[in-house]
């Protein structure tokens, strides 16, 4: 039932009787269908009250059903409609799409939003976004009753449709009503309408209400178990019209996570890929389940609340849902496995992008293997590995999402549904300014930070940077309202924190009373260009011990240390306990990666609570010392029958010829120079035998 077409005079006339009912009686009356007698079981214990109040009448001597009072039909219809849709209870205070579907026809929706689109489909999402924007109400309030308001209305209805606001006696009350309701966040009782519009007649009051409902300016709803009839403007609009959010204030929170886990994840994957290529599925280039599980078991453990934080899709009060690389929800791996699968995928993608690993096809098997650059990267310390990720990001000329250059990660970690002009826009600058405005000490709540900057320093809405220009691909995901742009900027800020700052050690995370809090680290300031250099703190000593029998025991969890040790030790467990064992095979693998004994011993010395046992140190040096590097390359050999011939060939070949043995010579040079030498030999009577 379209609320705008109800007889609101009748509804408002009988409303006081409804307000006099008890909550139980109200709930019972809502069970009655208009024009249909209700069975006694539907009315329950409230039947007597409803009869006494005149809402229903008792059945006749042979009947059992309770018909409702005919005069109350308009009220009943209105109440049932208000109870069904509950427009003031949408997520974040926005209008639910179902309400638009209920209350507006397709044509009406088209004309209301100005989208002339398809005649078989209405973009209700666009409609709800439009009417949930503060600008919708502001635009109406800016149109004074009279001609401006008539024009406002005409622009939003099909030509020829009767205009409700042509009458000043309707337009003015509506104007006053909307203005009054913007001061009430939770709405007001519907029964207080006369008090809000004392100068309007009941008919005009009803017409104003109907017009407000028609143009989605005001809404009526039932609230709570008491089914109280309320009237109001959308809560999100009331909120938006209120004072702006304050700058984020420091909160009391201790840093619980400050670890560049993307570096650790990449290290874990690359260590595996360096040992033996990780097989991939040919159809979608994904890891096989077993490899996925094996990697997942070795990933650095993050606290559950942290995983929830980085996995969220950035849903906020605006209802926007756009996340970064880790965003999502339960996938094939189920609720618990999603984030580890996402981390592995991010690590694999980063390794490929940075050419530290590559897809290779060998003998019809697709594998993911480390490149020489990747092996060299593994040989670096944790701080140096991190810097190798940060420096290209920092130095990249990228200014906007989606414009990452080759061999470097996208700076933002998020893609937009539309293009942004690199020449005229600089979202990176605005983002950096926002994060660098954080205090040097202490943490701020993530929500407060995002909310403030989304509204007050938003480059999309003209704060601090030029409006970006849509170039291509614009469509369904492009915001149409100020709130939409604020939501988008909030998503970008949040995604940058979740997918870049936090995984790269650029932010520390903690828990405060109001939710998750964060602070920028030196690595984060470095990434954002706030400082030119930073010292990376080595993974602190945990409760780790290196034993004389080459086992490494973790008496407490030390995830970063695990990632470090995995480069040169074999994993034998997870969590706490005997987690690693140094073996000859693990040392050889490390040597192949380019690690050296000194570096390995330095790492062990730094992480172990007790001195590295002398026999372990000695054995490590011996194992590393026994490794050698050779080169294999094709060569052209000349096998001579005797030393005299070899001498003659050497004389003719000059620098091109190197003696391998007394009668076997190696020819260097390209095919042309070899051919030239063969020709020269022929002239001297030395013939090449095939």
């Amino acid at each position, binding site marked *: 039932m379209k609320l705008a077409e109800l007889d609101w005079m009748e509804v408002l006339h009988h409303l006081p009787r409804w307000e006099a009912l008890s909550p139980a009686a109200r709930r019972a009356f809502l069970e009655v269908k208009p024009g249909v007698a209700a069975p006694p079981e539907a009315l329950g214990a409230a039947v007597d009250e409803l009869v006494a109040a005149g809402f229903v009448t008792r059945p006749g001597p042979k009947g059992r059903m309770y018909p409702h009072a005919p005069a109350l039909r308009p009220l009943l219809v209105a109440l049932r409609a208000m109870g069904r849709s509950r427009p003031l209870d949408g997520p974040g205070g926005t209008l639910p799409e179902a309400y638009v579907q209920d209350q507006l026809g397709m044509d009406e929706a088209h004309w209301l939003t100005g989208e002339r689109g398809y005649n078989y489909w209405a973009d209700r999402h666009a409609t709800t976004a439009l009417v949930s924007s503060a600008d919708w109400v502001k635009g109406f309030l800016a149109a004074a009753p009279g001609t401006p308001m008539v024009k406002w209305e005409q622009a939003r209805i099909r030509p020829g449709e009767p205009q409700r606001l042509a009458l000043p006696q309707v337009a003015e009350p509506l104007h006053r009503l909307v203005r009054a309701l913007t001061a009430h966040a939770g709405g007001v009782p519907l029964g207080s309408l006369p008090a809000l519009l004392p100068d309007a007649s009941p008919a005009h009051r009803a017409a104003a209400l109907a017009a407000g409902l028609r143009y989605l300016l005001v809404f009526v709803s039932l609230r709570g178990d008491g089914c109280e009839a309320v009237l109001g403007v959308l809560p999100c609009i009331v909120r938006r019209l209120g004072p702006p959010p304050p700058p984020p204030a420091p909160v009391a929170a201790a840093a619980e996570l400050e670890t560049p886990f993307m570096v650790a994840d990449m290290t874990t994957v690359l260590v595996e890929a360096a040992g033996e290529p990780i097989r991939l599925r040919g159809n979608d280039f994904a890891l096989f389940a077993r490899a996925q599980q094996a990697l997942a078991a070795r990933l650095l453990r993050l606290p559950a609340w942290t995983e929830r934080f980085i996995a969220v899709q950035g849903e906020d009060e605006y209802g926007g849902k756009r996340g970064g690389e880790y965003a999502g929800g339960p996938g094939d791996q189920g609720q618990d496995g999603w984030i580890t699968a996402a981390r592995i995928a991010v690590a694999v993608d980063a390794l490929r992008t940075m050419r530290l690993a590559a897809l290779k096809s060998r003998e019809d098997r697709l594998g993911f293997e480390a490149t020489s650059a990747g092996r060299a990267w593994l040989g670096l310390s944790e701080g140096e590995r991190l810097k190798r990720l940060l420096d290209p990001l920092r130095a990249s000329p990228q200014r906007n999402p989606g414009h990452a250059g080759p061999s470097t990660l996208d700076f933002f970690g998020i893609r937009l549904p539309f293009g942004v002009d690199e020449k005229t826009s600089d979202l990176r600058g605005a983002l950096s300014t926002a994060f660098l405005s954080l205090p040097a000490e202490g943490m701020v709540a993530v929500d407060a930070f995002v909310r403030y900057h989304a509204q007050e320093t938003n480059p999309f809405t003209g704060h601090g940077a030029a409006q970006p220009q849509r170039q291509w691909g614009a469509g369904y995901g492009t915001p149409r309202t100020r709130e939409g742009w604020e939501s988008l900027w909030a998503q970008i800020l949040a995604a940058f924190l979740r997918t870049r700052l936090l995984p790269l050690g650029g932010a520390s995370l903690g828990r405060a009373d109001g939710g998750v809090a964060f602070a920028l680290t030196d690595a984060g300031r470095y990434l954002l260009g706030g400082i030119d250099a930073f010292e990376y703190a080595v993974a602190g000593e945990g409760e780790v011990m290196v*034993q004389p029998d080459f086992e490494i025991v973790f008496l407490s969890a030390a995830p970063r240390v695990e990632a470090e040790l995995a480069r040169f030790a074999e994993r034998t467990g997870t969590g*706490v306990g005997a987690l690693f064992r140094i073996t000859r095979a693990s040392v050889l693998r490390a040597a192949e990666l380019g690690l050296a004994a000194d570096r390995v011993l330095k790492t062990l010395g730094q992480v172990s609570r007790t001195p590295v046992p002398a026999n372990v140190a000695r054995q490590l040096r011996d194992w590393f010392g026994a490794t050698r590097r050779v080169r294999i390359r094709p060569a052209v050999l000349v096998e001579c029958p005797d030393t005299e011939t070899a001498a003659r060939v050497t004389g003719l070949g000059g620098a091109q010829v190197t003696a391998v043995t007394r009668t076997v010579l190696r020819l260097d040079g390209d095919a042309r120079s070899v051919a030239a030498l063969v020709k020269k030999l022929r002239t001297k009577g030395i013939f090449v035998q095939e």
Partner: protein
Amino acid sequence: MTAYCPENPLIVQGDQSVLAEVGSPRFAEARDRIAPFAELVKSPEHVHTYRITPLSVWNACAAGTPPDEIVGALREYAKYPVPAVVEASIRDAATRYGRLRMVRWPEGIVLQADEPELAELVWRVRGVTPHLGPRVSATAFAVPTAERGRLKQALVKAGWPAEDLAGYTAGEPLPIALRGTTRAGERFGLRDYQADAASAFHAGGSERGGSGVVVLPCGAGKTVVGMECMARVGSSTLVLTTSVTAVRQWIGELLDKTTLHEDQVGEYSGQAKDVRPVTVATYQVLTHRDRADASFRHLELFDSRDWGLIVYDEVHLLPAPVFQVTAGLQARRRLGLTATLVREDGHEDDVFALIGPKKADVPWKELEGQGWIAKAECTEVRVPLPKELRMPYAVAEARQKFRIASENPEKLALVRRILARHPGEPALVIGMYVEQIEWMARELGVPVLTGTTGQRRRDALYRDFREGRLPVLAVSKVANFAVDLPDAAVAVQVSGTFGSRQEEAQRLGRILRPKPGANQAHFYTLVSRDTTEQEFALKRQLFLCEQGYAYRIADPREI
């Protein structure tokens, strides 16, 4: 306990292993609390590893430790919450012990279950049924005497251990007592831990005692414990050990430290077949047969007298045929002596079933701390292969490579330097290859003892070495087992097999007996650098480090 307690020493892992942090202030008390129900697997410097198995839990139950106490001990000393699966497993194992008992009824031995349902369950286990006699009640079965041991074996394998309370035959009475002064004129007495071990085994003569295993480190005096047990049992005894030399060592100890006379003690070996009230035999002679399909005729020794006690020395080396015979000897008291319950062949459960549960276990660190065994320092010296041997080594096949590396002539100079570092200290030079050890002995001017050395000469050399007239003795592999050389302070191994953990423990045990002065023993291993010998030496290194010995790797110039 729900939170992380860093001051606690234990980490209980889901695979039922327990890590114990030595540096924790509560380590010693935690170790003492878990020793009754957890087997020590290894004890390197900082963190020791124990393992809880159904067998270890049953051993604890046999000693009177209830499951609540086991779980309580873990919870009290664990850094993290004990995994629920471990607690459940312990309770499950513990609740199975004591529910089946072998008792003696007037009609004979019966297997009694605590409820009919268990009796039904056990009766239906395929491996158990053949060893059961007819049913005598809803909860009891007759047990043929000959099946007593095999039934216990089968029940252990089925996960339902039986408590053997059926008692023992008394055996021929034989009064034995330990002397206060040895025949050699030295004061002698039991150490506290030795007396405790004997008491635990004997249990006052009740049916709860009389069968079980005493675990003591090498050099701790297991022979003395065996003799004390013999004295407490007071009946004829058959002692089984690993070699003729060990037999003679036992006989020597018995005559020196007990009231037994020469005519009461006999040797049963390849060289003698004297069956006397106390007879000491080798496993080898018992398991000897002329042909592969012939019977083990010397196993009749078990029936040749009414033995009241059978002592199995180095029970971890018990050969399979002896196990089989032991299955039929369950009416006799049985004592196993060993440094480790861990067997290479995994037959620990047979030891539990046929010999008995663990009765005593003293960590070697504790004995070392009390001065009862020497501190051992292990040094591996890596000797370069001389230039002229490098090519022959490189082109040799694997077995020959090992020999070339082992017989590296450069080792001789190092042996000289090592012996010069320890002037006056009794030293053994041990080697695997007879030619090598004979050559070294000639060059060093010391006597050599090999497998072909006659027994008389061998005994003379041992005597001279023990009495200090011979400071250095070169020995081949024969010295691995049961050579009693209490005053050897230095062992230099120039080649070895590095095969089994028991061999390593035995070899080291030869020098662990207490020494005067600093009570320090030195064990050197010489290996050729960058050869297969060095790779094999890694196994030794790992084993010795796991046992907690200090291990050093050195270059020749450091010696």
